């Protein structure tokens, strides 16, 4: 019954749409200002093309402009060192950083195991009911956008959806070679996948709000600290 009545609503809405469009045909013909989309929009291409080194610099500059931290490193062992420095520093603050959650990427787990810090809890991709009990979440970022300092998180590639969101600190590791220049390039890559991933998130800086008297406050619902370690992978 419920099913049927909703089918009726669907039909009624489509009928109303078609009826209204038919009714406006005559008027549309007279409308000189009517715009028409000629052909499919092309992704907007960058004006000037940057090389990888300057894309990394551009990414850092734009991420820092929105209160994110960016550490550029050259090798895998530098990544471990950077993780150590971040966590060690945070452990001296109210953020504690004693309970660490990571995505289910095995490489992330291996990297974090090499970091020489004291932790109370460590978990791989905790569930929705567990994830509230962590101070730091560590994931990969599948791509970066230089012009806006944006991370692209594709949750079909690793379980990063909750780990990157719920803990107060998010640390992301990004390969320099996966930084593109523009939003358009990033969207084009995401679209090329055989099937668009069920959940993709673009992240530009830590969570923010200006809802109280327009005063900027960082870290309202999402992470209040965002660290991105960009690895140039020079040893390969």
């Amino acid at each position, binding site marked *: 019954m419920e099913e049927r009545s909703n089918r009726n609503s669907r039909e009624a809405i489509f009928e109303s749409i078609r009826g209204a469009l038919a009714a406006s045909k005559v008027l549309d013909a007279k409308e000189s200002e009517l715009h028409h989309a000629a052909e499919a929009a092309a992704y907007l291409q960058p004006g000037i093309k940057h090389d990888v080194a300057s894309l990394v610099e551009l990414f850092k500059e734009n991420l820092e402009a929105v209160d994110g931290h960016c550490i550029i490193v050259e090798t895998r062992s530098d990544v471990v060192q950077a993780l150590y420095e971040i966590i060690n520093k945070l452990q001296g603050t109210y953020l504690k950083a004693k309970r660490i959650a990571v995505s289910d990427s095995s490489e992330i787990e291996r990297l974090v195991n090499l970091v020489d810090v004291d932790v109370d809890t460590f978990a791989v991709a905790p569930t929705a009911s567990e994830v509230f009990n962590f101070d730091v979440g560590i994931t990969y970022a599948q791509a970066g956008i230089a012009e806006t300092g944006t991370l692209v998180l594709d949750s079909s590639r690793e379980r990063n959806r909750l780990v990157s969101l719920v803990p107060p600190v998010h640390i992301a590791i990004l390969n320099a070679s996966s930084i593109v220049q523009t939003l358009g390039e990033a969207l084009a890559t995401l679209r090329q996948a055989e099937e668009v991933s069920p959940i993709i998130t673009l992240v530009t800086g830590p*969570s923010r709000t200006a809802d109280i008297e327009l005063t900027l406050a960082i870290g309202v619902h*999402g992470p209040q600290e965002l660290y991105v370690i960009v690895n140039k992978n020079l040893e390969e």
Partner: protein
Amino acid sequence: MNHVTSETFDENAKAALADSQLRGALRNATSLFGKRRLAAAQGLTNWEDLRTQARAIKDDVLLHLDQYLENFVSQAEARGAKFHWARDGAEANAIICRLAAERNARSIVKSKSMTTEETHLNVALEAAGIQVIETDLGEYIIQLAEETPSHIIVPAIHKTKRQIAELFTQELGIPPTDDVAKLTSTARATLRDRFAAADIGISGVNFGVAETGTIVILENEGNIRLTTSLPRFHIAVMGIEKVVPRFADLDIFLKLLPRSGTGQRLTTYQSFITGTKQNAFDDGPEELHVVMLDNGRSRMLAHPVTRQSLACIRCGACLNACPVYQQIGGHAYGSVYPGPIGAVITPQLMGLEKTQQLPYASSLCGACREVCPVKIDIPRLLLHLRGEITEKSSPEVQQAKGRTMERFAFKMWRLMMLRPWAYNLSARVGRLFQGLVVKDGKIGRVKSFVGPLAAWTSGRDLRPLDQKSFRDKWASDQGKS
């Protein structure tokens, strides 16, 4: 709850004008956002091209809305989303209440959605005994205060931090503070428990991509990500006009929307959700339900002028640019959608009977049209609706105070403009009698018995007619040479 409605716009506006705290807050917000928008637009060399392209895409969508909707729905269904169709707000609310009841839901978290404000969903859910919590900080504040949003982007812009602190002290039991960071972290901590306990998350939708069935939602706080990731069920409420044809089109709209709204190059988070998760053990909800809302939208397709209203991407730029909104704020409009876009959308959604003062809430200066990222010609829409009110609407609307006089005045004006002798005569008569009302070289507020002149001058001064008309001067100058 306050009982401000669109019917009493004139009185609402007067009350708002007397509220100096509100006007100060509005001045700060609208000028700040206005400046940021301008800087962000100037930061792109092709801003005008983007606007033109965005509008072309929207026009294409609206002219073929049935086809794009079918594509969007079949793509999303193939990926596991379930669709529900609501002809009006009541039907949308009934669908959501049923979905909640079937899942034994007791607690719902919501992220900001104009569409659910439009249907008054919270009232319906509470009546059904389901607790619903707004999680956007601004929306949370006004839910605690039992008020309504006053701005599309900054819902609690009308409240000072002191008022918010008092509210939090009263409702959440925190010690008094005027530290914004403290207030924000209090809200964060309180809402975390709500997120953890919620059975269902309800969100709006900014864009629905026809070719992939993807829904896209923009935000800065992270509450939308939490709402759409943590609970077992996600219900998204979407106006039927929110479709864009291609994934590539997002490039254009994601450049325009944040820049126009807050002057950001991108909001902090964009969530792209395509159907449901692939594996049971993945993060995220088990079910995705999309409620498609018509509620008067399909009707607007029937005329090219009204159809434009459906191109709106709810950025809020026209509010910030509007000299009327800047003075009176959102509550005076008495409806969910305030400002210039509200003045044109509300009458079309709710009918002209109860909203007929809104299309007049504008000086037709055109600032809204200048800033609109999808080039909606709001002044033309306002004039179109004014025309409907004076010419085509029901007898009750037509005979309402002032409308008969308006029709009569414009008939007389037309008569005179077509007949020079009549024009001259009326000008002479006017010059003869204006001495009765001119003071200090202007016509200030005149007493009510003077009829329409009193109504006109109650809010503004009028310049008196010159003693000598242009025609007379011209004639005598010609005589001299």
